[in-house]
């Protein structure tokens, strides 16, 4: 079998292997904190108020926008606050959240009927169910699942579904655990997606170090449209465009989307959530999270309610007594967070707890070119570094900065320990800000010029109007004079007649 792959990427040893991959269902948290914006662009509006009792699965905030999903209570209890709270974001900024204090009962909303045969339902109905269940891409991107499917429902664009079970970041094992423990859910979820999209086939991609997961899935595949593909264990295989390149040898161009090529990618966790929503009528209220790293002695996977604080599950993985650094997501692509008192979100697949280690000294770039070789999207990190550091975002964009998937391979191999990827995420943010600033200044310039034009026009109109009025009055006066003359003439005639008659 030819190995399917792409250029670049790196092999990172997994330091945190476990004997067998299981899932521990965690006790209910005392409280949950649920942000109103799952993605930075969202703005959900609460539909409950402080003091109100809510049930598990109840919608507590809605989004008018079709692009976003509603937010559900993940435990039953009382809404105790709707205010700004810290979330797991590198900015350390707060955002509006709904806090629910648990009543310990986990009382659910009346469950929607389970559907025995979804094949009888129209794709649009199912897509709406998926949206109402609050499902977003759970692999890290958080892109609403119904949007990817919604497109298809309309126009049958999708030919191939790719189910991403690669889980390429070393240390993370929540998807592996899901595949091993709930393979039937994933396969049924894929069948649902095939029905909705009308796609011809679905390929489940798994890295070749997860043989158990692969075998588990194989047992349940009966639909001949579904196949699996083992790909080499290499970091960044999980990135959507690279996976497409590896599996189908198709390039998605810069700025393009997978759907342009008739492809839809979905992570295995998302597929399993789609199954829950469509077949069991259950909204997304929990997820599986890996806790691992040098700071815990028993790395494991936890099935936990969304909105629970990090510490709720980290404490279960036997953390060491040392000082820790916390990272949400993988060791490569994750985000550092300052505290464990932040809520677990739908995209939080892993919490890395590391003992704080001495940092490397950053040295000058020695132009070794190692970074250029490992970049999986064929960029030139060495060049990008200079432009990003000097804030020359225009030049950096010329070198395709925006195509950088922030995988961190370049930083990983750099012998000078330059945190290249951090420079790139900085430069990307700066680039976005510059564009936004320019949009604002251009708008201000235009509005200023329009105002000048408007004032000038108003002036002109006013002068014209005044002149027209003056003219009208003059005419009227002239008219009036004519009338007077006529009357006088008539009077003269009358008087003259009188005189004539008298004679």
């Amino acid at each position, binding site marked *: 079998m030819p190995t399917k792959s792409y250029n670049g990427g790196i092999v990172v040893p997994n330091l945190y292997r476990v004997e067998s991959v299981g899932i521990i269902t965690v006790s209910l948290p005392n409280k949950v904190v649920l942000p109103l*914006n799952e993605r*930075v*662009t969202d703005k959900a509006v609460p539909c409950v108020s402080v003091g109100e009792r809510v049930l598990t699965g109840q919608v507590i905030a809605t989004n008018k926008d079709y692009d976003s999903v509603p937010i559900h209570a993940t435990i039953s209890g009382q809404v105790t606050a709707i205010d700004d709270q810290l979330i797991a*974001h*590198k*900015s350390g*900024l707060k*955002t509006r959240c709904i806090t629910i204090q648990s009543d310990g009962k986990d009382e659910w909303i009346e469950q929607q009927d389970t559907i025995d045969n979804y094949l009888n339902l129209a794709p649009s109905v199912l897509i709406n169910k998926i949206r109402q269940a609050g499902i977003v891409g759970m692999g890290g991107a958080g892109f609403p699942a119904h949007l990817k499917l919604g497109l298809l429902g309309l126009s049958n664009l999708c030919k191939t579904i790719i189910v991403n079970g690669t889980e390429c970041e070393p240390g993370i094992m929540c998807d592996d655990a899901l595949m091993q423990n709930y393979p039937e859910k994933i396969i049924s979820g894929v069948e649902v997606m095939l029905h909705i999209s009308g796609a011809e086939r679905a390929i489940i991609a798994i890295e070749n170090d997860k043989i158990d997961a692969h075998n588990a899935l194989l047992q349940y595949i009966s639909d001949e449209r579904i196949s699996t593909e083992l790909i080499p264990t290499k970091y960044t295989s999980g990135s959507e465009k690279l996976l497409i390149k590896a599996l189908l040898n198709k390039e998605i161009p810069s700025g393009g989307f997978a759907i342009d090529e008739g492809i839809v990618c979905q992570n295995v966790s998302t597929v399993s959530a789609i199954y829950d929503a469509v077949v069991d009528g259950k909204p997304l209220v929990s997820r599986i999270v890996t806790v691992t790293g040098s700071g815990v002695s028993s790395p494991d996977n936890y099935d936990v309610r969304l909105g629970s604080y990090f510490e709720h599950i980290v404490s279960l993985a036997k953390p060491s007594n040392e000082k820790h650094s916390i990272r949400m997501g993988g060791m490569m692509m994750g985000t550092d967070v300052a505290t464990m008192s932040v809520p677990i979100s739908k995209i939080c697949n892993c919490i890395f707890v590391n003992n704080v280690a001495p*940092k*490397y*000294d*950053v040295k000058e770039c020695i132009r070794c070119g190692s970074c250029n070789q490992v970049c999986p999207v064929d960029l030139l990190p060495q060049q990008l570094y200079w432009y990003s*550091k000097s804030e020359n975002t225009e030049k950096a964009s010329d070198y395709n900065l925006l195509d950088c998937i922030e995988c961190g391979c370049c*930083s990983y191999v750099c012998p000078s*320990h*330059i*945190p290249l990827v*951090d*420079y790139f*995420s*900085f430069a990307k*943010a*700066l680039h*976005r*800000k510059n564009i*936004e600033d320019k949009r*604002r*200044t*251009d*708008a*201000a*310039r*235009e*509005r*200023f*010029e*329009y*105002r*000048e*034009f*408007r004032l000038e*026009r108003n002036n002109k109109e006013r002068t014209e109007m005044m002149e027209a009025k003056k003219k009208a009055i003059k005419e009227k006066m002239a008219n009036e004079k004519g009338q007077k003359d006529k009357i006088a003439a008539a009077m003269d005639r009358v008087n003259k007649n009188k005189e004539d008659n008298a004679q």
Partner: protein
Amino acid sequence: MALLLGLILGYAAIKFKVKGNPLIDQIDAILPQTQCGQCDYPGCRPYAEAIANGEAQINQCPPGGQDGVDALAELLNVETMTINDEHGETKPKRVAVVDESVCIGCTLCIQACPVDAFVGASKVMTTVIADECTGCDLCIPVCPVDCIDMVELKPTLRNFVPDIGELANAY
């Protein structure tokens, strides 16, 4: 209808007018478009014209800050100068917010705003379109009941830019 057409045509005329002087355009592109008049000209473009004609110095724009002065110097290929603080101090980006409970609907601010960022009408409460406010301060002095406040724009999750100051040392 005719009025509307006239409006569109008239506006198109300014929008697409061939701006006579590309140098003025280039200078104007650097200026922040706050339209505050602190440079002693009635707006950014008039100031750009004055610079191009050699009537004004390049360091008269407080919102543009020292970075703006440097950029102008580079464009014009002249020695840069320090910003002239007689024209005002450089402040962080702000927007006007109307205290709607106090506003009497006098519309003076609407007339003062150089970018038409206020919406309102005579005797009804006025409000500001935050996205269009340039933070020029021109509405502050005209308000008879002092109900306009300038509020600093806070960074959001959306426009957050990380700091790279720390990166160069240890990783």
